[in-house]
Every structure is written in C-alpha cells, then in structure tokens.
C-alpha cells in the first residue's frame, strides 16, 4: 500500500515525461535538421543529434525560395484585419443578445448558431464564387471577408456580458449614458478576459489557415505564410531538400512560438477567466 502510494506518482511523472518528449520530438528534429548541412541522402538525417558542423545555409535557401518577409506581412495584415472587424461585430452582437429584448431574438440566435457549424472551408466552392462576384478575388480583403462575423465570438461575448452584474450599467444609465458609452466604458473593460481569449483563438486560427487563402490568392506578393510554406512541400516529382523544409517550417512557426512563450500565463488565465466551460 505504501509502496503503491510512492510508486504511482513516480510512474505518473515518468509517463508524463515520456509523453512530453514524444510530443516535442518533431520540433526537436525541425530545430536540429534546419541547421544540418545539405545532404538529402544520408541515412542519418532523421537523427536528433545535432551536427557538429551547423550551418545557416538552409535558412538562406529557404529565404531565397520565398519572400518570407512579405509572407509575414500579409499574414499579419490578414490576422489583424480579421480580429479588428471581429471585435466590433462580436461586441455589438454579443451585447444585443445579452442585454436587449427584441422580436425574433431566438430566431436570430439560431441563425448565428448556423455559422458555427458552416465554417467557410466547408463552403469553399460557393464562397469563392461570391468573393469573385464581389470583385475581391486575389485580394487580402477577399481572404478576410468571410470571417468578419463570428458566431463563436458572439457567443463568447454574450456569455461574458451575461456574467457581468447589471448594477454598473444601470448606474451608468441613470447617469444618462447612451448605449454605446455603456458598452465602451463599462462593459468592455470588464469583459477584457473574454475578449483576450477570443483574440487568441482568432489569431491562432487565422495565422494557420491554409485552404481558403490558397484558393483566393494567386499573386505571390499577397501570399500568406502557410501558402508560402506549402509550396515547399507540394512540389511534384522527385526528391525533397529536407533541411530547407525544416528551416522554412521553423520560420513559419517562430513568431507564434515566441509570442506564446512570452504570454503563456496570460494565455491560460484568459481561458480560465472567460469562464469557458460551457
């Protein structure tokens, strides 16, 4: 009995360590391989042991193969643009559903629900047609447009607003504040954790999006990071330069990685605060 009590946590810790190692192995390899000198064929290329002679050659080749600076810029534009619009639409809509009573509220609520399931990738074929009809084909705006309204964000904000006691708003209303002042000065500051949680989800999702931008964008000057990276992998016939691939992958992952490590505590906390439990 006493042995089991001591053994169990030790076993648990060992298992956890093993899982963690398993989880991190692909990245370990990426790191090691991106510095390994060119040699697409040697049998040890999967080795996790770094080479004694590291090189930056792969990164140089990766940069040559694609204008990564431009990709970063485009991705930031898309992610930023989507988030900015979303903050506006979800705050307004969330407020409407949380605080106002109006005819057709239930119906409209279900309508929003629909968008949660019918994510743009599922409607890729008709949405492409719409984007073309709007004259937004091959533009970053075309990539962003379908995401400006967010059912997920609306629900999150509604949830967050509902959890805020009405006292503050009633006080503000008594003081004669109009609806927008109530939202801007009273509710939003208190709803910040929810907004942050939403922002994190939104940024991560759109940073990593692939299929939709691939279909909308042709101009290489407008390509996002994921498309740029994919051209590495989607090359047809023969061999692959694994070192360059690893370097390219690292370049795509780096910013999010750095951001996450820096804001890790905030990340987790916002998930807790937003009461994302249902």
């Amino acid at each position, binding site marked *: 009995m006493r042995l089991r009590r001591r053994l169990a946590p030790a076993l648990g810790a060992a298992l956890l360590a093993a899982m963690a190692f398993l989880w991190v192995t692909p990245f370990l390899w990426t790191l090691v391989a991106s510095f390994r000198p060119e040699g697409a064929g040697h049998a040890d290329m999967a080795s996790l042991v770094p080479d004694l002679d590291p090189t930056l050659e792969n990164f140089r080749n990766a940069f040559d193969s694609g204008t990564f600076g431009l990709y970063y810029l485009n991705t930031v534009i898309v992610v930023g643009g989507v988030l900015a619009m979303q903050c506006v639409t979800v705050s307004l809509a969330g407020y409407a559903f949380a605080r106002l009573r109006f005819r057709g509220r239930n119906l409209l609520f279900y309508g929003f629900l629909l968008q*949660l*399931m019918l994510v743009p990738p599922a409607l890729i074929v008709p949405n492409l047609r719409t984007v073309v009809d709007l004259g937004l084909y091959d533009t970053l705006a075309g990539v962003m447009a379908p995401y400006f309204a967010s059912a997920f964000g*609306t629900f999150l904000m509604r949830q967050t607003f509902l959890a805020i006691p009405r006292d503050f708003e009633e006080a503000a209303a008594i003081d004669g504040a109009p*609806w927008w002042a109530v939202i801007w000065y009273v509710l939003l500051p208190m709803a910040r954790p929810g907004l942050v949680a939403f922002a994190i989800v939104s940024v991560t999702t759109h940073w990593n999006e692939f299929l939709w931008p691939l279909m909308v964008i042709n101009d290489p000057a407008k390509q996002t990071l994921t498309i740029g990276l994919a051209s590495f992998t989607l090359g047809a016939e023969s061999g692959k330069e694994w070192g360059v691939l690893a370097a390219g992958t690292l370049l795509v992952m780096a910013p999010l990685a750095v951001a996450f490590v820096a804001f890790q505590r905030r990340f987790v906390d916002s998930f807790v605060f937003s009461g994302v439990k249902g």
Partner: protein
Amino acid sequence: MAVTDAAPEIGGINSGARTVSGLAGRRRAQARVLPYALLAPSLIFLGLFTYLPVIRVAIESLYDKPHGLGDAAARFVGGDNYARVLGDPAFREAAGNNLVYALGTLIPTLILALAFALAVQRSTRFNTVLRTVLFFPSLVPLVAAASLFFFIFLPGVGLLDYYLGKIGIEGPNWLGNSDLALWSVIGLTVWKNAGYYMLFYIAGLQNISRDTIEAATIDGANAWQRLRYVILPALAPTTSFVLVIATINVLTSVDHVVVLTRGGPSNATNLLLYYIFQTAHENFDYGKAAAATLMSVAVLLAISLTSMRVMEQGGRGAT
C-alpha cells in the same frame, strides 16, 4: 434552447428631468431599432458567406454541367446528383473514413487532453514548461505539421523508422499502406489538438472549488473515485464544449490530407471535405460537389445542434 432573459431596455429609464414625449419617443424608437442595428454588421457577413452560399449550393446541386462541353450542355437533373453522390464508392469511402477519423481522433484527444490537464493543472514552473510543450503543436499551421510528418513517416529513413530501426523493428509504410494511412493521419491530428483542448480542461479544473474535492477526500474517496464521481461530472460542460469544437474540426479541417496523401492511397485517406474539393476542382463536377456539400452541411448541423442542446442542458445543470 431559450435565450436567457435580458435586462429592461437601456435608456428606457428616463433621466427624469426634461421633456417626456419628444425625447422619450425618440429614445424608444431608437431603442427598438438598436438591437437590429447592432446585429446588422454581423448579419451582413453571415448573409454573404454563410446563408447565400448554402442557397447557391442548394440550387447548383440540382443541375448537371459537364466539364468543357459548353453551357448548352447544362441541364436540370433534380435529385440525380444526390443519387450519384450516394452511389459513388469514393463518397462512401470518404464518409466511412470520416467516421473512423472522427472516433479515432475524438476519443484519444479528449482522454489525453484531460490526462494532461490533470497532470499539469498546478501552476508550477515545471508545469509551465510542460504546458508549453504540449500546447505547442496547436500553434503550428496544419500545413507545416503535415510537412514535418511527411518526413517523420518517410519509409526507411524517416524519424519513426530510423528510431524504430535502432531497436530492431522494421516500420511499415505509414502513409503508403492503405490500411495504415488513415491511422497515421489520425496520429498527426491527435498530436496537434490534444494540447489545445488541454487548455480548456485546465480552465475547467481550476473552476472546481477546492472544498468539494477536499470534502470528497475526507469522505474517504481515493484518487480514482474523486476523478469519477467529483471531477468528471464537474467537467461535463467543458467536455461538451470541447466535443462540439472537436467535432466541427473533424469535418472541416483537411489541410493535412491535401499536403500528405491527397486522399490516397486509393482513397484510404479521403475525407468528406476533401472529396468535395476534388469533385469540384479536379473533376469539375460542380453539381455533384454541390450535392455532396449540402449533405455534409446537413450532417454538420445535425451533430452540432444535438451537442449544443446537450451542452445547454449540462450548463444549466452545473449552474
């Protein structure tokens, strides 16, 4: 599911002072329009990119326009496209694969997410590192992960086979064996998503009051019993939430198929969305793609509505 009651109209409570009719009248008219005005921006985009496409797809699914033979060849075929989709062995295979894929990813991912969350819920330094490691895969674009895994799965010299070889095991053809390919894709998906859902569970765990757990311990419950009878029920809302997101993910993310296997070998990794993509963009059979889209959308809706209902009930139960 009923939308919970809202507060009385804002601005309805007059400042008390000035004119009653003019200002109040205008305010009331404003207040009546307000909710719709607030919803308008969202509704515009929803209309354009959610409702309109569905309508278009519904209409398009009723026509057959063979590729490259000119518009003259387009003809109304009614339910013909639907019949063709259901009769297409590739569609049936994609649907079957999606089911296996769903179960194969949802179950391990949820279990792992919970297990990880339980293991790292306390905010120690060490746990912070672990959380980073486990969450990291979800930060990576699926395309990037797929490229990595292409190498990992490479026969003979890839990461997996290399280290398996060191302990004397000969790795199978992970992506080229039609029995194994789908499971390799499932493995990639689990690796990618477990950490993400782990965060939700950590939040959920931190919301369980210490007292409840202590009470259970005092009552003599051991770790397993605490888990089963106290923690899991308290996490029900989190689980439903995660389940909804994960299910939607299962049906809508195919980036890895596009990059890794393109549906192969011989449709072993074909998923519904990829089948639609192929039908539209490789076979140019837009009517058939539209029909398949509509059917998938119907399935998506059915699943999500049921889980939403369960979630609301769970939420109501917990609060």
